[in-house]
């Protein structure tokens, strides 16, 4: 059996397959379809300090080999997450990553502080529920904050620094492909003490209804994900992993075990799978099996052997 394990900032991953934020709920729905404990990890739906309604109008539109989403970070808020989902998470045996978004610096910091407080409490009672925070500075679907933080390195620096101070949990920063300079952004995260970076979030994109002569989305732009973005995301993961020394988590358009190996060869520590969860509701389980078979066929004994080889 090839070795698929990996670790990031002391957090163990049974295999490199982690479910991406916003495509996996908090795990329960898929948990009724297959044993999600087989996964390397999950990232929960993006949280903001206060509950968020998300965007009105159409929220999804398909493109050739991709999809546009305009969910706009609809979520129950950090407090409701801690109250309603953490018991379930505490019972899971995989890396559990809370994805934190926000509009203002204060909201980001308070959200991180609440998660930290809960984590410390749970640690003492032996019922840990969150192993890592993924800080989303990159959602293209929220107006204030969101993308603004994700584009400018020096604006993002303040958020990363403050969150680093607010939590002792392993911290991963999720980068936007819309960043002015994604390598600079990643280097900044490393300087500010982030344990890892993950990339990429969705690409800011658009669809126009020519009959109505308007964007199909109330929010004008939406986020593009799926196989359409894979070649660009892969290039970004490659660039970033050559520049930083902290682990890089790669994602964008992964649909197969071959795609996963490409990301690992580009330098990714582990990968995240998003849109493909909609194409195949059992994608997690299937990818684990396929990767095991592919690694054996390619005579790859462990992922370390090929990581960053390109």
């Amino acid at each position: 059996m090839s070795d698929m394990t990996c670790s990031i900032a002391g957090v163990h991953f049974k295999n490199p397959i982690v479910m991406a934020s916003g495509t996996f709920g908090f795990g329960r729905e898929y948990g009724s379809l297959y044993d999600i404990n087989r996964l390397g990890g999950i990232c929960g739906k993006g949280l903001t300090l206060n509950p968020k309604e998300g965007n009105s109008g159409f929220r999804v539109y398909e493109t050739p080999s991709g999809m546009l989403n305009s969910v706009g970070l609809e979520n129950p808020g950090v407090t409701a997450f801690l109250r309603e989902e953490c018991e379930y998470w505490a019972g899971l045996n995989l890396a559990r990553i809370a994805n934190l978004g926000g509009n203002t610096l204060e909201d980001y910091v308070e959200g991180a502080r609440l998660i930290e407080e809960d984590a410390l409490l749970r640690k003492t009672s032996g019922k840990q529920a969150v192993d890592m925070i993924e800080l989303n500075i990159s959602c293209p679907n929220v107006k204030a904050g969101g993308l603004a933080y994700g584009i400018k390195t020096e604006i993002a620096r303040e958020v990363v620094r403050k969150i680093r101070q607010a939590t002792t949990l392993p911290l991963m920063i999720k980068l936007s492909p819309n960043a002015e300079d994604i390598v600079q952004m990643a280097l900044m995260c490393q300087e500010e003490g982030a344990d890892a970076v993950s990339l990429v979030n969705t690409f800011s994109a658009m669809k126009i209804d020519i009959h109505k002569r308007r964007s199909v989305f109330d929010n004008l732009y939406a986020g593009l994900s799926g196989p359409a973005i894979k070649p660009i995301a892969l290039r970004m993961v490659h660039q970033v992993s050559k520049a930083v020394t902290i682990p890089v988590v790669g994602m964008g358009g992964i649909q197969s075990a071959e795609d996963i190996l490409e990301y690992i060869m580009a330098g990714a520590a582990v990968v995240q799978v998003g849109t493909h969860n909609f194409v195949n509701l059992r994608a997690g389980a299937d990818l684990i099996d396929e990767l095991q078979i592919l690694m054996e066929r390619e005579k790859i004994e462990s992922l370390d052997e090929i990581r960053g080889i390109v």
Partner: protein
Amino acid sequence: MAEVIANVEVAPNIFRLKAAGAFSGRMGQFYMVRAWDRYPLLSRPLSIFDLNESGIEFLYQVTGEGTRLLSALRPGDELQLEGPFGNGFPEVQAGARIALVGGGIGIAPLHYALRNYRGSDVYLGFSQNPYLTENFEAATTGKVLVNVGGIVLEQVDFHAYDTIISCGPEPMLKAVQRKKLETKSEADVYVSLENRMACGIGACLVCSVKCLDKRRKACADGPVFLAEEVVFE
């Protein structure tokens, strides 16, 4: 994976598809259907048109790429089905007076509902050629009213029923909501929504429905909602 046993065009661009296998599902529930590998990415939600020991049936209208691919299926081809999903139509008390109101392809889930609501009155609205009306006539002991080119809702007396269930294009569902409020009918009035979906199981929130109290998921909390609950955006 299910095997297609029939896929027949019953009216221009309207197909009735049957797949073999042991499927489950209550009236008003739907399946996420695909007959292609990876593209288009998303599966298509289709309501249960009929279901028995020999298989499951769908009635669909060709409107775009996915349904076009479905329409090319031949007996022996494979169909991927995930489900059943959604809450389905409500259980009603024995003897309740029920009206089923369908607009266009929105008639699909109402057919299966007649297995439970044997004595319902059925109102079917079509913009052009009506189809399968004889199947509805055979499935109910109540009356079947067919309206072509008009507004079927005008024929429904909201005071004559205890439960009214509607499925059709959004303008029709809005009108159902309006009529429920304007007539101050005491009937329980339901609308079955057709929001765009990605996962179908409640994980992605792209199907979110604004309701009076909060947002709900069309796929997991619906697609059937009390008419007055929904805030049409």
